[in-house]
């Protein structure tokens, strides 16, 4: 256990869309290497929360403090816009449910991975291509497909490419929005195994939003259950899923069809 300060400290996070509640009073800490799952049904506020946490949506109230590589901690909404963008390009990653939003569909797979490197100052073409090739291999994409665009890729391959694009800059925090949503079950299993392994090897902190409790159980060590914009239950993933306390969590857990 590291006793260092948390990577991310969230307090009193609240979002109203006009008078309609997005989420309210969310608070938690996240340390390096921790995987936190946010679960709940559609409309529970979990996607709003992810957008707030990843700096894409400005909160109505509350703070999101992030510990930078130099050790200084700053509220992400006190940063300048360029600073926040730099953080997003380098230290953070964001895996969209639909890979089309996380990839540039018109440029090659190698270019998709290389682009993130160029954004952080890489200029040597050979080094960029070598690193991109290496990352495609790590996400199990055949090297012969490096010059093809993601348009020619299957859904599972696109998602793996999106992961490579995100992880190539060695981020410390990655947000994932239903990363296995919309994929065939066998493709899901492969992607989950890949994600699990990469996250553990690289000691990345992850916040993953999912409605699939099996994904939460396989990937995360901690979980937050959301309902109507509020975190109703939180704790160790296996404890919350095996000994759920709240009526809604019990309903969620008991609604899974046994295989």
């Amino acid at each position, binding site marked *: 256990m590291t006793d260092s300060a948390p990577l991310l400290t969230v307090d009193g996070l609240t979002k109203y869309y006009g008078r309609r509640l997005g989420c309210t009073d969310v608070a938690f800490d996240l340390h390096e290497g921790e995987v936190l799952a946010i679960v709940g049904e559609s409309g529970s506020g979990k996607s709003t929360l992810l957008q707030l946490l990843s700096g894409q949506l400005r909160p109505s109230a509350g703070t999101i403090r992030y510990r930078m590589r130099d050790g200084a901690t700053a509220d992400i909404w006190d940063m300048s816009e360029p600073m926040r963008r730099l953080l997003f390009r380098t230290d953070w990653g964001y895996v969209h449910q639909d890979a089309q939003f996380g990839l540039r569909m018109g440029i090659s797979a190698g270019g998709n991975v290389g682009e993130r490197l160029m954004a952080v100052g890489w200029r040597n073409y050979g080094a960029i291509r070598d690193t991109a090739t290496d990352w495609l291999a790590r996400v199990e994409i055949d090297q012969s497909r490096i010059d093809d665009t993601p348009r020619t890729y299957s859904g599972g391959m696109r998602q793996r490419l999106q992961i490579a694009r995100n992880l190539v800059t060695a981020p410390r925090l990655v947000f994932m929005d239903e990363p296995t949503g919309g994929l065939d079950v066998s493709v899901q*299993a492969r992607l989950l*195994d890949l994600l699990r392994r990469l996250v553990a090897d690289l000691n990345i902190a992850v916040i993953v939003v999912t409605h699939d409790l099996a994904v939460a159980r*396989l990937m995360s*060590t901690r979980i937050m259950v959301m309902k109507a914009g509020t975190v109703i239950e939180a704790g*160790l993933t296996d*404890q919350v899923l095996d*000994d759920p*306390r709240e009526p809604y969590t019990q309903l969620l857990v008991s609604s899974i069809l046994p295989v």
Partner: protein
Amino acid sequence: MQPLELSGVTKAFTVHLQGGLRLPVLHDLAFAARAGECVVLTGPSGAGKSSILKLIYGNYRCDEGAILVRDGDTTVDVATAPPRRILSLRRRVIGYVTQFLRAVPRVSALDVVAEALTDVPREIARDRAAAMLARFNVPERLWSLPPATFSGGEQQRVNLARGLLPDRAIVLLDEPTASLDAANRAVVVDIVGERKRQGVTIVAVVHDESVRDAIADTQIDVTRFATAA
């Protein structure tokens, strides 16, 4: 203090889907276990034996009481510790062999076992995992396959290899021999004996009387703490 001390442990489940039905499981459970001691929990099915192991591991929440685990020079109360502290205990102090293997898709039996060793290089972890699988007589041709399709006994042996490989001060065993033949039951008895001599504290649920008699230093009948009907 002892490596493991439980006092006043009380646990009930409230089933909201059935109108808040309350199912009491344990009331005022207390016991301590020494280094090198094997405590076997006894009692009929439903008495709460497995629940006790889950409470110690932090898999079930403890309603009342304390579950004190010695961690080096400090003591952690699993009943109240934050998630990070419990995870840290699981990585270093408490091992748990569940009744059934929770197979992860696509991960080979060898890696399922090797992953239990988080603090050594992968190649060394694989070597040690291979030795453990061999000891449990898991055929080498199965090592590279994911255990999801294995027989019950094969899965249990993979699970045991995984649970007993890392060095832990406390090991929880839930029905470790339920699906095993005599030869493999003997392997379990051997390894438990080794661990006890190394000073490991073991808490086990074992129905097989010969295994129980071979490993138990203390038997605790949990019926007197059980409150279930």
